[in-house]
């Protein structure tokens, strides 16, 4: 179990993490979301013991990362952002080195390395120098070193960034397979990834948690939750028909496709059956008709922009200035 309690990290100019507290249990795949510069990477760097916190504690299975770093670090596998590795070594040499540092000796080294190579399918490039590998393979080398010692905690900073769709799919499958008895924390700004692999998502903005829940829970906070999306073949005035339904909040018309409408439900209400009844009785010229689970993207935008506007800054600079400042320091 990872326990993060009142974690704060200050840099010279700003606060990257602001009194962050949460716990992650075995079996959970936690998606760590947030705009660029929100403090995702910094949080991961503090959890893995690369940076020391300004205040607060991180404990991994009871081992405090500040007071017993060796024990805590041996429980974790970490893929830093960009999957850095020693480019002048071959894949095999590099993984051998990692296995040795992880404390394996003798035949166990070869066994561990082989296992990691099989797991992420690196066999074809094991004799190649890492510098000559493609981005996807480099990422997999990074994953291989992270899972080498079958760690209880796996921390992956943007594991699919820059990969092609096939590679992304492969990495996600891999994460799902690994996740069963482990804690996995992945940071990402690809929202589909959260729905695909995570059992829980935390959205942070300006170093604070602004949302925490399962992807489905977060989606239900979207204004598109339970919304009915309708596509017509002919122009038809839907709004007039829906005016009498008390649970309908609004009707949105698609800017590009004039015949597509989204009927928003009031919070906590389900309007599907009502709308479908009206559609049948009034004989709408419908070709598509479905209910939306809600859009994570919409929730993401709402919660992260709320937190920036709380800073009571002038409208224009509110989203740009703090973020660019943050990036300079955090990256």
């Amino acid at each position: 179990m990872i326990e993060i309690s009142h974690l704060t990290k200050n840099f010279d100019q700003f606060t990257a993490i602001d009194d962050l507290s949460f716990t992650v249990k075995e079996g959970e795949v936690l998606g760590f979301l947030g705009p660029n510069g929100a403090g995702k990477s910094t949080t991961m760097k503090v959890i893995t013991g690369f940076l020391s916190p300004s205040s607060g504690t991180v404990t991994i299975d009871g081992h405090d990362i500040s007071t017993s770093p060796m024990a805590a670090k041996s429980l974790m596998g970490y893929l830093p952002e960009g999957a850095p590795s020693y480019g002048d070594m071959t894949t095999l040499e590099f993984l051998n080195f990692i296995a040795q540092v992880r404390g394996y000796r003798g035949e166990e080294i070869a066994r561990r390395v082989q296992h990691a190579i099989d797991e992420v399918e690196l066999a074809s490039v094991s004799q190649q120098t890492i510098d000559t590998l493609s981005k996807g393979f480099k990422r997999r080398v990074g994953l291989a070193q992270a899972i080498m010692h079958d760690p209880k905690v796996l921390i992956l900073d943007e594991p699919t960034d820059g990969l092609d769709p096939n590679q992304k799919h492969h990495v996600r499958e891999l994460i799902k397979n690994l996740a069963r008895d482990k804690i996995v924390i992945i940071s990402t700004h690809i929202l589909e990834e959260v729905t695909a692999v995570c059992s829980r998502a935390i959205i942070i903005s300006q170093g604070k948690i602004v949302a925490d829940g399962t992807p489905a829970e977060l989606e239900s906070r979207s204004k598109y939750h339970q919304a009915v999306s309708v596509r017509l073949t002919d122009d038809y005035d839907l709004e007039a028909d829906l005016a009498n339904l008390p649970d309908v909040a609004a009707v949105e018309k698609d800017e590009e496709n004039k015949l597509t409408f989204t009927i928003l439900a009031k919070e906590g209400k389900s309007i599907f059956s009502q709308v479908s009844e009206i559609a049948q009785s009034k004989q709408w010229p419908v070709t598509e008709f479905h209910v939306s689970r809600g859009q994570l993207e919409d929730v993401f935008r709402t919660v992260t922009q709320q937190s920036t506007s709380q800073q009571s800054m002038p409208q224009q600079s509110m989203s740009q200035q703090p973020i660019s400042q943050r990036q300079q320091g955090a990256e």
Partner: protein
Amino acid sequence: MGNLAIIFKRELMSYFATPLAYIFIVIFLISNGIFTFDLGGLYARGQADLLPFFSFHPWLYLIMVPAIGMTLWADERKTGTIELLLTLPVRLADAVLGKFLAAWALTGIALLLTFPIWITVNYLGDPDNGVILAAYIGSWFMAGGFLAIGSCMSACTKNSVIAFILTVSICFLFVIMGSPILLDAFPGWVPQILVDAFSAMGFLTHFDSIAKGVLDIRDFLFFSVFIAAWLMASAIVIEMKKAN
């Protein structure tokens, strides 16, 4: 094999995985040849010793050793592998020392490969090989001093060129500290003890006596403490500057 040895091995192998080590060794040997035979006039002196060979070493190291030291941490920082290395269960001290020792071993290998010069004087005359051995060890320790400065400067920046220039500047300062040029520049009112302390920090003060065959344990102690101090400074700098 502890983590120190594992890191040492990886670093040393990585020098030889690229042309860097070979280029370093070749240039080191060629410059040594030129300094010893042409500029130093080893033959013309008609003496069976290696004084001309060793007395150029401080100046040779001034350029060559920072070139090795500059990549020590700057490259780790630039490629981001510092984050990988320091989140592995590795003590910072092991990492600093392992990397330093690997680079120091490389300078040791280069130094050992100058053995033909030693064979030459033995063929031509009958030198005191004890003195030569002591001077070799002294020279290696001095290289370690330069390298420890390089380690610390390299930890300060992710740009290895800046690390190189910083290292050369600081090394130059320590080389000339003991030389008369600098000592004469002190005005008369500066207490002698300060001037002596200043001069005692100079590389030349310690290395000149070693090169002449005066084997004083204090000179070796100076370089050992010097190396230890700069390596500790490296560790502190790395710890402080990890965030950027």
